[in-house]
């Protein structure tokens, strides 16, 4: 019986409150036959919250007297704090007399005590009263809502239109973002239209050149200022790329476009076929030396810290030095008396060793060539070295 009462208490906690007991209230209570449960406080606040909740469950039943403020009321009922200190004193009005609660000031005990004191009829009366109070409050809220309804309806129409606009805008922005993301993911960031420059490099230290390259380098050319931005490099497995050409035919050395008849039908690209990615198309760039095509992954980005844009030095009006100060380029050829040019080159080369010492490359500066590419490069180097050692010959090409 106690727990349903507690549930009822919980359900009604928001609808009623405890009436503060004073001399006038005490007269009213004692002049009626309705029961009342009074809590005389002496400063202890622990049961205040419980008392309020219990008062919500039994509207008009529970009262409170603050004996620290209204001492005459407490004295009239012979209630003092000497017995329990600051703990409250509970008294139940049966309709004809007060009964002092002598149990522990525990919520469960108080509820049980109250339940014992109230008859079923009184409980039903209090429950109906509590329900009536709740219904009345709900009715008041509904009336208040009905009074505000016209204004809210106008606001709702504007809000709905605004929400629709926001929703459409959000959807449009989302669709655009998804489209841009798909486009971005579908292409390399380096595939923006423009002019690119491929540079083949010497990869081996030969007699006439200190090859420091790693293969094929790719730059983006900015037409406005002529600057070149490094994009990537790739080892192609072929040492010392000496010449590059591209397909489709295009002017080389400024010559005219070659006249080629229409391609056979079977070689035409499929009309529904999407353009090849940049890497695949440029894979067809022919690397010289052996006619091999560069391996896949041509545009694989690698870290090339050495490929930094150098600031343009200040223009100088210095005239070139006299011819005797100039350096001949081929200084490593073996001496020969057959031609004065050859002898001159060799003599000059003995004076000039090398501008920069042995090549220094950090691991990060190397191209991200695949293991197979590196293996091919090593094999090529070794074979080239062996051939050169077996049959030395002119290397200035």
């Amino acid at each position, binding site marked *: 019986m106690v727990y349903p009462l507690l549930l009822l208490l919980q359900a009604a906690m928001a609808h009623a409150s405890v009436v503060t007991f004073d001399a006038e209230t005490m007269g009213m209570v004692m002049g009626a036959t309705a029961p009342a449960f009074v809590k005389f406080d002496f400063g202890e606040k622990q049961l205040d919250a419980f008392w309020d909740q219990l008062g919500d469950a039994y509207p008009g039943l529970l009262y409170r007297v603050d004996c620290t403020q209204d001492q005459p009321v407490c004295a009239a009922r012979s209630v003092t704090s000497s017995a329990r200190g600051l703990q409250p004193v509970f008294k139940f009005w049966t309709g004809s007399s007060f009964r002092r609660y002598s149990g522990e000031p525990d919520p469960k005990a108080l509820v049980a005590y109250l339940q014992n004191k109230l008859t079923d009829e009184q409980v039903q009366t209090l429950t109906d009263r509590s329900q009536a109070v709740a219904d009345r409050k709900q009715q008041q809220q509904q009336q208040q809502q009905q009074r505000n309804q016209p204004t809210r309806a106008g606001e709702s129409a504007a809000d709905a239109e605004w929400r629709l606009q926001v929703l459409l805008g959000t959807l449009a922005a989302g669709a655009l973002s998804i489209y841009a993301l798909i486009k971005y993911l579908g292409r390399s960031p380096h595939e923006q239209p423009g002019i690119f420059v491929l540079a083949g490099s010497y990869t081996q230290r030969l007699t006439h050149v200190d090859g420091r*390259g790693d293969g094929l380098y790719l730059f983006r050319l900015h037409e406005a200022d002529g*600057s070149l931005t490094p994009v990537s490099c790739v080892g192609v497995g072929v040492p*010392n790329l000496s010449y590059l*050409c591209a397909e489709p035919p295009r002017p080389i050395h400024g010559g005219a476009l070659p006249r080629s008849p229409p391609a056979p039908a079977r070689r035409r690209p499929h009309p529904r076929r999407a353009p090849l990615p940049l890497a695949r198309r440029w894979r067809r760039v022919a690397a010289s030396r052996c006619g091999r*095509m560069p391996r896949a992954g041509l545009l694989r980005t690698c870290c090339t810290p050495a490929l930094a844009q*150098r600031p343009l030095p200040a223009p100088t009006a210095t005239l070139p030095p*006299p011819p005797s*100060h100039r350096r001949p380029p081929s200084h490593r050829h073996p001496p020969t008396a057959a031609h004065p040019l050859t002898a*001159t080159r060799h003599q000059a080369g003995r004076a*000039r060793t090398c501008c920069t010492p042995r090549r220094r490359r950090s691991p990060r500066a190397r191209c991200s060539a695949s293991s197979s590419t590196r293996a091919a490069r090593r094999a090529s180097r070794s074979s080239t070295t062996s051939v050169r050692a077996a049959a030395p010959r002119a290397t200035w090409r």
Partner: protein
Amino acid sequence: MALIAQPNGGLGEAHGKGPASPLVLAANYDDGSVVGVGATVDAKGRRTAAMARPLMLRAPAGEAGSKVVAERQASPHAHCCLPVTPKGQAEQHVLVADLGADTVSQYAPGAGAAQLHLVGSLAAAAGAGPRHLAASPDGAHAYCVCELDNTLLVLRLHADKPPELRQRVALLAADGGAGAGAGGAPKKGKRAAAETPTPASFASAIIASRDGRHVYAAVRGADIIVTLQTEQGGARLAVVSRTPSGEAADLTCPDESRWPAHTPRDIKLAGPREELLLAANQDSHSIVSFRRDADTGGLARLSIVESPSPCCLLPLAWPPPS
């Protein structure tokens, strides 16, 4: 085997009996031969990345070097081959510059599949060392830069006769260097004047502008880019200026006792209107860009970027023209 590759843009298709795809011509330096390498197609007719078996277009010439410069000319050394369409002709010919034999040979498509027959050869000066070729836009003339004597040959092309020499232009100034007007980069090194003999320069690359008004040649050693203006419809060339391919500030050599160098090994024109010229400086490990004046042909330096040992350049427009 050192190759210089050039696209021919459908040589085989020109005479109808060649391979089904355009060839990449390659000049073999060591034996003087010229081969053509074509792409392959798969069963669906799509191009593949694999290369077809090389076709021997010009057989090795054997021991026929001029031997003027024994080290370089003991045997034929085909250094460059260039497909050209002589003026008034429908089929493409191939010019081959042979550094070892001091010749510029012209080949026409032969009767057999993917073969060339010799139209004729022009004998350059002994010891000249023809190295690279370029052609005028109309195909009437070709320009050949000679590495060993630093000259530029103006050749008139015929369909049935060998190239005809019309002019021989010295790329270096009279003093043997870049010339007074070149503004060349001062060389470092205090030992230069005392120990260095007369410098040796070696022409490397040549390009012609698309409008046919200017020709550019690079010279290693002198480290210059020579600008030449065409006259008489490309039949004559006149030196306009000599521009240093690099500056002293580009050289990062901290040791003044050593010789710095730029060594422009390749030059290329870039841009929609060829308003830029790029120079690959092999020994200063950089690529220098120049602004090109389309009217005067003059070059003004713009920018430089580091590039380890560059030896060849290829500007590409992206996306590629369809």
